């Protein structure tokens, strides 16, 4: 039983990892960023490339990927998103285009492949990130087998969630973000630099995607379209949890991850996925604002 729960927990942690950044960019800022998966992918490539050229291990790649994805997110905000606040569907469409562009840039090695220049670690092929061996060797504590890499992901996810909670609810920056979230005009009237705060918030959410990318790279293939399949799951989690509610996102990922895990063990993975989608549809129909939405809306 504990093993099943652990499988569910590790599924939950992956969902949360993706959804955490989205709960910031979508939940707090009303941007449906379809390129979020590509920010995840960029994080993963950062880990691969820094491994090849800087010989950096996973742990140092985490902050680096955060910075790289955050920088890309910042650029994305300034070039595209900034013009689209309040037009949620347009953010979806524009970032869909951005996602195509980012994927293709990695595939074409930023266009250098046209000139016959190849960068190791980029291109259309499959890449991989080295994981320190002590993270892949399971061990036992008091007869309970521990899977170090999964546990590491869970640990990082918990820390990131706490950090995000702290930033959002215990710092003045977080207060400003939440003010903007509820009413940008009034926030601006109160002297909050809405543009700057929005840009930083978006960059932070993007940076979280970068960290997710590094951790994902530890157990799945790194390739240009690796992020595309994850982003939809992330959105489902955020919506089920309730847009704008960090707690909701955490609980929704826990719920959906456990449902997936339990059904996967009891029946099979395919049925489990189908059940998860069914549950998502039912929850949104039942509570369109999600499980933990603001009351004020």
């Amino acid at each position, binding site marked *: 039983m504990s093993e099943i729960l652990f499988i569910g927990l590790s*599924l939950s942690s992956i969902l949360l990892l993706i959804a955490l950044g989205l709960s910031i960019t979508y939940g707090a800022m009303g941007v449906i960023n379809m390129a979020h998966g590509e920010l995840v992918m960029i994080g993963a490539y950062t880990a691969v490339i820094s491994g090849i050229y800087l010989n950096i291990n996973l742990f140092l790649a985490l902050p680096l990927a955060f910075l790289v994805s955050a920088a890309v997110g910042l650029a994305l905000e300034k070039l595209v998103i900034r013009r689209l606040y309040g037009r949620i569907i347009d953010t979806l469409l524009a970032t869909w285009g951005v996602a195509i562009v980012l994927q293709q840039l990695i595939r074409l090695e930023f266009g250098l492949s046209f000139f016959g220049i190849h960068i190791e670690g980029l291109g259309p*092929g*499959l890449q*991989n990130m*080295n994981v320190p*061996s002590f993270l892949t060797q399971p061990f036992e504590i008091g007869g309970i087998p521990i899977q170090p890499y999964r546990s590491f992901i869970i640990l990082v996810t918990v820390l990131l969630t706490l950090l995000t909670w702290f930033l959002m609810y215990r710092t003045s920056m977080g207060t400003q973000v939440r003010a903007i979230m509820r009413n940008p005009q009034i926030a601006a009237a109160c002297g909050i630099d809405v543009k700057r705060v929005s840009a930083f918030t978006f960059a932070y959410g993007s940076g979280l995607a970068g960290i997710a990318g590094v951790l994902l790279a530890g157990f799945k293939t790194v390739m240009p379209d690796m992020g595309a399949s994850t982003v939809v799951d992330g959105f489902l989690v955020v919506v089920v949890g309730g847009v704008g509610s960090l707690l909701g996102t955490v609980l929704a990922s826990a719920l959906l991850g456990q449902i997936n895990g339990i059904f996967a063990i009891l029946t099979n993975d395919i049925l489990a*996925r189908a059940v998860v989608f069914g549950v998502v549809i039912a929850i949104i129909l039942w509570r369109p604002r999600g499980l933990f939405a603001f009351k004020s809306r």
Partner: protein
Amino acid sequence: MKSNRRSFLKTSAAFGAALAAPSLIPGRAAAAGEIEVGVLFSQTGGLSIIEKSLADATLMAIEEINAAGGVNGMMIKPIVEDGASDPKTYNEKASKLVIRDRVPTVFGSYTSASRKAVLPVFEKRNNMYFYPTYYEGFECSKNVVYTGAVPNQQLSNFVPWIINTLGKKKFFIVGSNYIYPREMAKVSKILIEQHGGEYVADEYLELGHSEWGAMVSKIKDSGCDVVLSNVVGDSVVAFYREFKNQGLTHDVLPICATVTSEIEIAAMGAEFAAGSYTSFPYFQAIDTPENKSFIERYRSFVGDPKAVTHHALESSYFQVFLWKQAVEKAGEATPDAIREAIKGQTFDAPNGKVTVDPENLHTYLTPRIAQWGADGQGTIIEAYDEPVQPMPYVAYGEAPENLFCTAGGLDSSKL
């Protein structure tokens, strides 16, 4: 069919003649001294990871043939199209190549889904398609030459070898959820029973899925002593990594795979596969001068000194040479002539001698088993002495003395 093609020709002729209108976008005709062929792989999208290498191998073969004087003195001119990893696009590009460009042959595609999407174009327009990938069998088309392995060429020595040599008897069969892995499982089960083994489970995961926690946990608890993997694509990487992360090792519980090639091994990191096995007719590790030279030429062709070669890539390469020989024998490059002339063609490919079966247009290949090392290269530990006859209907009782698919077509009464 015939009457329709005629009426179709009549209609277009009538329009052309009656109106004498110039075509907006005229079809192209090959220049004299050139033979145009289609090269249809995904240059973009998820499948481009592997398909680009197949396209490269095809183009390399064309370049080598042209450098050696071409076919009957004519240069081969490839028309490269992008299938974009999407069956809809594949279908559209195939009809462009066949109907608009009027090439006599198209080399292409990796997945069964894309082959299935282009097949109607080739069969209804009576054109030729050269398909380089191992696939599930169960096809008997007069318009396709299959140069990849069919299940009996991957499994007929693999399963007995696992049972007799490795001494493993309890199989956990796992695959991606589509036809190829399911057909492989079906053939495996027949072979397992024949050789006194048993299978404890037969499980599938969505194609492209990368969450293996539950499945590996099931494997752990199943009491199996060998895993037969028909997992395809990038899922493979996640599978092997999760396998190790959950503490399973290939020396106790080996993964024996039918799809895990050099590409996936390189992508997952060699340490995750070290000790596991794969069955294919071709490995990069085949230690012959021909293969070493092939790898050398491929690497310089794509400008990547670390590029890996693999089974479908090698087939993509040698099938162009088989085609060339057929055109030379026929003396003309029309689909019908190519089909007749390709029958029985033999070529010394990097993996050894390959021959096109005159009955079902599949290819005789030599099954091999390799064990992966920590360097990411396979060591060939078992190989057939000679190429094995392809039998696309082996799961339904096809045998050399009882062929289902012959030059006359499929005898469906035997199914």
